[in-house]
């Protein structure tokens, strides 16, 4: 018994080992596609876990734990490689500007339900300066919706702008005609964008985030519903909104693969959209603009949050 306790004391409570074991568990949880909400959180924090692992490497070096620091950096390398290789649909970027044919500029902005309407003037200024073709708003109050209506002169087409919206619904405004708009119970709005005589299917969605088992299951149901919508469309498609997933998550990579949608993620130019009160490099990107394989991303950036807990995501696509 005494020997066992001494062994536990030597292994678990050796300087740096508690953090080291926690790091290993976090890495393991992060690479699972788990249906348990608490484990699922780790999968979205892959980049933060990696930064933590690198910091831990220096702490272990400082403590003169040579072998532990070697294992730590080795795990970091495997972990980073797995994150980079797991999302094969996260590299749809157009670097050669001479290949740009037509451009489409989009903004996806989760305004936050509690955001004061006084911030709308700044939001409007941002939209006017960015000159998007399509803007998607989510989590807006009815007072904010009244303010959004003032954008009608710039964006004459919309997905039922005058109808009252639920907090998780999306509102899409467009400079180009929208047809066959459908808003359904899963907080999904589908519409067809008519652009240069071609039709592009636009899907706006706010995926629920599971703080409880029930809501998490609802979010998984929404994802399978989205898969059905995407597989039933034979047109080019753009899916945008607050997906409550990051590109380091296995669930996100699997979703892209199954729907054959693409995006671009850069770990050099980080575009975190949540939470807006943290610096860009500490946040995560949970708002996304995904597209079918005829599109390529030219620009991806974020702007100020204007009182929201999200930053707006601004994307320019070539098609």
């Amino acid at each position, binding site marked *: 018994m005494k020997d066992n306790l001494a062994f536990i004391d030597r292994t678990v*409570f050796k*300087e*740096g*080992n*508690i*953090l080291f074991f*926690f790091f290993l568990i976090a890495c393991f949880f992060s690479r699972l596609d788990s249906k348990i*909400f*608490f484990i699922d*959180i780790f999968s979205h924090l892959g980049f933060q876990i990696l930064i933590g692992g690198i910091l831990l490497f220096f702490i272990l070096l400082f403590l003169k734990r040579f072998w532990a620091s070697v294992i730590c950096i080795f795990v970091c390398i495997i972990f980073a490689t797995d994150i980079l290789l797991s999302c094969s649909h996260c590299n749809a970027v157009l670097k050669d500007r001479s290949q740009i044919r037509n451009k489409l500029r989009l903004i996806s902005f989760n305004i936050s*339900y509690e955001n004061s309407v006084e911030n709308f003037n700044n939001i409007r200024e941002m939209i006017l300066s960015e000159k998007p073709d399509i803007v998607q708003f989510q989590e807006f109050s009815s007072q904010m919706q009244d303010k959004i209506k003032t954008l009608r002169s710039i964006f004459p087409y919309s997905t039922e702008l005058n109808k*009252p919206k*639920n*907090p*998780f619904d999306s509102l899409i405004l467009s400079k180009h005609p929208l047809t066959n708009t459908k808003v359904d119970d899963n907080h999904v709005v589908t519409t067809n964008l008519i652009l240069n005589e071609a039709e592009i299917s636009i899907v706006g969605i706010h995926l*629920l*985030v*599971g*703080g*409880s088992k029930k*809501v998490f299951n609802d979010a998984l149901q929404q994802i399978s519903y989205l898969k059905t919508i995407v597989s039933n469309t034979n047109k080019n498609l753009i899916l945008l909104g607050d997906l409550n997933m990051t590109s380091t998550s296995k669930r996100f990579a699997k979703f892209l693969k199954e729907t054959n949608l693409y995006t671009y993620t850069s770990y050099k130019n980080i575009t975190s959209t949540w939470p807006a009160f943290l610096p860009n490099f500490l946040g995560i990107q949970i708002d996304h603009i995904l597209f079918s394989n005829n599109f390529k991303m030219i620009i991806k950036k974020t702007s100020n949050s204007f009182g929201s807990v999200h930053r707006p995501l601004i994307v320019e696509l070539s098609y």
Partner: protein
Amino acid sequence: MKHRVFNLIELLIVVVIIGILTTVGMIISYKTDKFQDLNKKFDRQKEYKERLYNQG
């Protein structure tokens, strides 16, 4: 003694990280429930308005 203090700091870091994750989860859960209540209220209002509209 120094060794035990370091252990305590390590445990504290782990507890703080788990605490932040749990708190964020609870806040999100609370907000989602609130929004879903708003959804239900909104649907009831819509039904009521539709009923009024059909009546007259």
